């Protein structure tokens, strides 16, 4: 008897699961909420940087290199000091640079959509690195969803009530 139960129960489960909530996120059209301090693209605050080079030496993948900053690039006050340049093609998003920076000049952000058509574009100069993270223009503006768990209908992603302005 137990054999029959054990054989037929999966069939019933398969049937009942047809009416549960779908777990998938329709990605480019929907996107999960990512916390602001997620280990995503790193943002640089040039006015805080003391050009100590700790970030360069702690980086496990040698993604950070301190480079000479020119005036043309948008920084006016600091000229002769070196600032970090970050190659996101090498970065493993370990955030050690953020953790060990003595003056909190680096900060991780929520942006994870970093793909580019050319590899050279992944190298962020200090000026580019200091800009606010921005979702690529190519992607449609997604509806934000959040994980919701209900005992009856199962786990799934429900749209957030109000969208946050930033993303």
């Amino acid at each position, binding site marked *: 008897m137990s*054999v029959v139960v*054990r*054989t037929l*129960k*999966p069939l019933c*489960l*398969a049937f009942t*699961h047809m009416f549960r909530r779908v*777990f998938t996120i329709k990605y480019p059209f929907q996107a999960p909420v990512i*916390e602001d*301090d*997620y*280990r995503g693209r790193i943002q640089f605050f040039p006015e805080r940087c003391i050009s100590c080079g700790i970030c360069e030496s*702690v*980086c*496990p*993948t040698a993604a950070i290199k301190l480079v000479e900053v020119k005036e043309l690039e948008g920084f006016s006050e600091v000229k002769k000091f070196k600032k970090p340049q970050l190659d996101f093609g090498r970065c*493993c*998003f*370990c*955030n*050690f640079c953020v*953790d060990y920076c003595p003056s909190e000049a680096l900060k*991780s952000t929520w942006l994870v959509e970093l793909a580019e058509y050319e590899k050279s574009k992944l190298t962020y100069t200090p000026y580019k690195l200091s800009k606010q993270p921005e979702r690529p223009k190519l992607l449609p503006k997604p509806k934000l969803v959040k*994980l919701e*768990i209900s*005992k009856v209908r199962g*786990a799934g992603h429900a749209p957030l009530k109000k969208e946050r302005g930033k993303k």
Partner: protein
Amino acid sequence: MSEKQKLEEKWISWGPVHPASGQMRVLFQTDGENLLDLIPDIGFTHRGIEKVCEFRTIISAIPSVEKICILDASNVDLGFVKAMEELLNIRVPEKAKLLRTFMCELNRITSHLYWTSLMGAVAGFYTVLMWAINERELFLDLGAMLSKTRVSYIYIVPGGVRYDVPEGFKEKAFEILDYFEGRLKTLYDMFFNNKLFEMRTKGVGVLKKKDAIRLGAAGPTLRGSGVKMDVRKDEPYAAYEEVDFEIPVGERGDAYDRCMVRYKEMRESVKIMKQVLEMLPSGRVKVKTPWILPPGEAFSRVESARGEINFYVVSKRGANPYRVKIATPSFKNLSLLRHISKGSLVADLPILVFSLDPFPLDSDR
């Protein structure tokens, strides 16, 4: 016919480019449906991580070390960090110990769920593949709350853990764990207790207790053969002494027992995680660590999801270790494949391989 061609005539290759094999291959010979002989062939993903560690400081080696077995990042990480802490002689704060335990168990669950999905897939059962991956997603979210990233945690560092518990973490964790307990029952009814799955795996790939010890099996494979051995109990590290849990063991040592051991381990992990959450004190999660390793050597044992993982570190004063030797469980388990495949059929091959839960990256290092 050249020698090479002759060899190719004789052996059929399962992998490395194959729907189910992963980044390894198994060469096998058949007589109709019967498996005559097989050779597990690994090494396609060798990255030389032991060597990489020699050129990294103790902190910056961690991202590489984790990639030995990225499905089980925290457990591998903890093994390395434990050896380093032994060298540096650091005592870790109580809260950090508990958080380490939590993260390791979380990783054990994600790793076992990933295995469940693969096991479902190789049995031709794609529903389980999707379900297990769905449940894993919950735990990735939970891990992301703690460590701020989803897979490659780099959470455990010498001296403690990197981030403190965020706001609202405990409630979220309990919600997910309670839900997952229910889902685990459903998975049991659907998959582990499914009569057809049992038919498929029972009596396949028997590894007797004696052979398991003699051939050096590790982890759930060893426990599936009825050997009650678990580093978490034998030589408790992190906070495993303070929590209460069981070590599930099998009886016959066949593929079904190994699967059931992993299923029961997931239940135990949920139990441990709940206890840890209740026990969490307040306080620091990290102490300051020196950067320079003193001369000496250290050895660490950690029970990862695939079995015992060992790190042996030699240091000759400096920022980098002099030599790191890593013994990984997948390598130990994959070498059993030939032994347990005796008298099996071709259709058993994926079941045999995945009942050992190998991770080719783990075995290649």
